[in-house]
């Protein structure tokens, strides 16, 4: 055994030592821990770690196979996201012990704080004392054993798993119920308690999900196919779209869900034009070679930056919302174009990882598919706070798409109408977020850029928090962004458009003199290279394409992404539908679209008189509408409408 003195060794250095000893198979003892955060995070070897005192937040977080013993207390989130292994805490645990675990055993000898086992998927969390408020909140599987009292609202919104209470059940959460023990439950529990030498003479009560909220009570009839162009017609009153909407709501008695993006006209990049006459743009056949387009994103704080051949990325879209074949096609196209792909919510498949040369791994509140092994093979980590299409809400994936394979990756029961949590268990403010960012950095040895995905809402406050919390870049997503499934009202009526979002973000960072400390990747309805250039002029460091890549790869914009029967094989998990999708062919189509965008960016930058896209600025733009002028502060020059360049030429 090796001893590390934390009074003399910084946590970052200690964690590197622990991981190195893990690889050698040497056990570790930590002395003078004094409740420091992030002890042992990211360890993936089966060694013993003994902590002689109290540990702070996220002790043993993001680990697999190691055994931890803590002589005294732990702070918030002990064992965060553990895959296997064990943690024994001799004292008390703070809030959310065992958050998002996938199979470990966590034993608390004292009491444990609020929301124990939130979004856990498998494994056992046991507490010899009392639990606090909302134990088992939104758990998907596994077992919580509370030898003392349950606390209020035990099992609130649990989906799966079991909670056993030895003391008093103070108050059941919504959709939780008390049931009789199954044969074998008691023997299993006592064997577990014996193994951890926890004496218990009482009897257990068992709490499970009551099943009233797992699926919508009535499913939504598939609507008549209205082409998107009809669907988005200008009239807001009593048109066929409104009639259909009222009719369906009269049948289902709840809000409707649909896929794709918002259909209302909003101020957007199309309301801007270039100040100069660009009629000569694109005449030079060799223009791509004459403009510097390569850039790096994510390296400001010392992490290994993403290397982009142009200031473009793929927007986050999940395997789940999209079929495996579609994610493969997008990944291949991103590799061919030399840009970065993003997993979105729901985990990283081997196919995605293999297809994309640079892949950002996204973490959402439900921690679906989130784990240390995929973190270690990612090229960037991203904390999702919200998205432009439905700010403030979690993801939705209807039962048809929650196949056994998908449920396995995400660690949830198959066949539920999945409504992902809208909040993170351990991010309830900028202060908690900072500790979480540090956990991700510690677990991966500070190698990877850590970004934040923000749906435009309170943009000014949010970007200030992002820079103060030390993120490397922001993926800022406006209201014109699309989604695989969201409440129809939210998609059309909630959010802040992309245009004011980027203006507000840059202004806020300049106000606190921190613009140079963070990069911004703008997304949300960015359609092509022309939109991209306008975004870069407004101050974005790069842009991301989502919907446009899907369309390039065969999407017909029928808005039925959520149903799971996508005829093109894109937004489906049904093998019969998916087999229509030819990933190799579509990857070349998507790549061709990306190369077209590259040519547009180069041609416009060159025509504006620059040889580097970084020279683009707000002075290159004018506003075509009074609204766009008001939002951006650009001069209102509607006459410029006539001089828009015809750059829709695609490269061969």
């Amino acid at each position, binding site marked *: 055994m090796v001893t590390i003195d934390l*009074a003399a060794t910084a946590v970052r250095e200690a964690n590197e030592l622990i991981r190195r000893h893990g690889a050698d198979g040497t056990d570790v003892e930590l*002395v*003078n821990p*004094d*409740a*420091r*955060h992030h002890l042992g995070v990211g360890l993936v070897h089966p060694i013993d770690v003994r902590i*002689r*005192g*109290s540990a*702070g*937040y996220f002790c043993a977080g993001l680990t697999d196979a190691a055994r931890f013993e803590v*002589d*005294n*207390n732990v*702070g*918030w989130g002990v064992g965060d996201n553990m895959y296997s292994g064990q943690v024994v805490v001799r*004292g*008390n645990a*703070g*809030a959310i012990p065992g958050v998002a675990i996938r199979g470990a055993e966590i034993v608390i000898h004292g*009491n444990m*704080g*609020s*929301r124990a086992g939130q979004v856990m998927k498998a494994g056992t969390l046991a507490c010899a004392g009392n639990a*606090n*408020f*909302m134990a088992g909140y939104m758990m998907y599987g596994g077992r919580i054993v509370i030898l003392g009292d349950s606390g*209020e609202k035990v099992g609130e919104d649990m989906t799966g798993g079991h909670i056993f209470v030895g003391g008093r059940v103070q108050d059941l959460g919504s959709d939780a119920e008390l049931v009789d023990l199954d044969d074998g439950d008691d023997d299993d529990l006592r064997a577990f308690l014996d193994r951890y030498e926890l004496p218990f003479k009482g009897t257990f009560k068992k709490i499970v999900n009551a099943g009233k909220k797992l699926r919508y009570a009535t499913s939504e009839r598939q609507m008549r196919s209205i082409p998107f162009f009809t669907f988005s017609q200008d009239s807001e009153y009593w048109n066929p779209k409104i009639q259909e909407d009222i009719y369906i709501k009269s049948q289902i008695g709840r809000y409707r869900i649909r896929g794709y993006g918002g259909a209302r006209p909003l101020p957007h990049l199309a309301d801007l034009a270039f100040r100069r006459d660009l009629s000569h743009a694109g005449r030079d056949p060799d223009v791509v070679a004459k403009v510097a387009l390569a850039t790096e994103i994510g390296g400001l704080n010392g992490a290994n930056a993403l290397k982009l051949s142009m200031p473009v990325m793929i927007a986050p879209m999940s395997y789940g919302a999209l079929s495996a074949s579609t994610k493969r096609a997008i990944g291949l196209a991103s590799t061919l174009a030399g840009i970065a792909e993003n997993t979105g919510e729901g985990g990283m498949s081997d196919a995605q990882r293999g297809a994309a040369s640079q892949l950002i791994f996204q973490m959402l509140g439900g921690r679906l598919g989130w784990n240390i092994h995929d973190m270690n093979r990612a090229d960037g980590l991203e904390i999702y706070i919200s998205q432009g299409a439905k700010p403030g809400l979690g993801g939705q994936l209807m039962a048809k798409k929650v196949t056994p394979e998908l449920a396995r990756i995400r660690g949830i029961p198959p066949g539920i109408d999945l409504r992902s949590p809208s909040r993170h268990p351990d991010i*309830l*403010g*900028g*202060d908690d977020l*900072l*500790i979480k960012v*540090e956990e991700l950095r510690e677990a991966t040895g500070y190698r990877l850029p850590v970004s934040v995905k923000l749906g435009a809402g309170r943009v000014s*406050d949010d970007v*200030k*928090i992002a820079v*103060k919390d030390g993120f490397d870049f922001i993926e800022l997503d406006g209201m014109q962004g699309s989604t695989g499934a969201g409440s129809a009202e939210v998609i059309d009526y909630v959010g802040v458009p992309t245009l004011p979002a980027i203006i507000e973000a840059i202004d806020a960072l300049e106000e*606190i003199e921190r613009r140079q400390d963070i990069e911004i990747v703008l997304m949300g309805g960015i359609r092509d290279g022309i939109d991209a250039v306008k975004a870069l002029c407004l101050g974005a460091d790069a842009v991301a394409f989502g919907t446009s890549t899907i369309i390039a790869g065969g999407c017909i914009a029928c808005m039925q992404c959520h149903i799971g029967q996508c005829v093109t094989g894109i937004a489906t998990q049904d093998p019969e539908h998916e087999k229509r999708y030819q990933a190799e062919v579509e990857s070349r189509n998507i790549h061709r679209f990306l190369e077209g965008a590259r040519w547009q960016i180069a041609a416009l930058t060159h025509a504006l008189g620059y040889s580097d896209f970084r020279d683009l600025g707000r002075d290159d733009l004018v506003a075509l509408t009074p609204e766009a002028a008001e939002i951006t502060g650009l001069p209102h020059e509607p006459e410029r409408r006539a001089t828009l360049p015809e750059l829709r030429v695609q490269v061969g």
Partner: protein
Amino acid sequence: MCGIAGIMYKNGSGTNPAGRALIDMLDGCQHRGPDSTGFALYGGERSGRLRLRFLVGEGEEADGAIARIQGALAKHGARVVDDERVGSNYRIQVSFDGDIQKLAYDVEHAAKVLSIGSSLEIVKDVGSAHEVDGQYGVGEFHGTHGLGHVRLATESAVKPEAAHPFWATGFADVAIVHNGQITNYWKMRRRLEQRGYEFTTDNDSELIAVYLADKMSQGIALKDALATSIDDLDGTFSFLVSTRDEIGYAKDRLAVKPMIMYETDDLVAVASEEVSLNRLFPGQALNTKEPPPGTYATWSRSI
């Protein structure tokens, strides 16, 4: 968006190293709030004396503010015992036995008041615990009890007057540090304004301070005021309050904001994270307690 800390020594003596203890605790949780740091310190009380602390800035701006302050004090018959300028602060001690609320509102109109009390002094500025200590000598402060705060600014700007702790404007010796957000702020503020109270910021922490001070001015014990605050205030909060003789906490029912405490025969210390408590007792495994949601408690110094 912040970290909070509080300490009370039970011996009631004014010789305890309260300033140094709070600096250590806040340094331990500075990661929770890198923008500004503040302290509410209690000690050195003398009967018939009032301590006032103002933010006056530098140079001519400060000269003007000090002249206005002295004018307002003279108008209320407060006699200056001693005064000094420290950093951008102006500290003054007066002998005064009139209506503190009236005096407070008048001097508030003359300059930015940080605190008024017989033993309270609030020191707060942008920067870390060590930077604020370097500027104002907080570490040399000895006293009976105190609160501390580190802030990550979100909605309001990074400036000294937006830092915590907040003084309960108009009420001597009441201070607060708060982690969270009060969502029925405007409703509660309008109620208190109708009763004649003035607010000097739009910060929800000032509201909690005035809310509690109002209750106490009606003869309600601090403990009972904390009990009603859990019902009356909406939102997420863990806060610490201090008066001349007591400190207390209240925590909302959703248990969203952290708080942990440690008590011995000699002292009680409360903080956002155990890492702060361990700064007072390095290398020791502490038998700490996490207060349950929807609870409150107070501790008094022996007098």
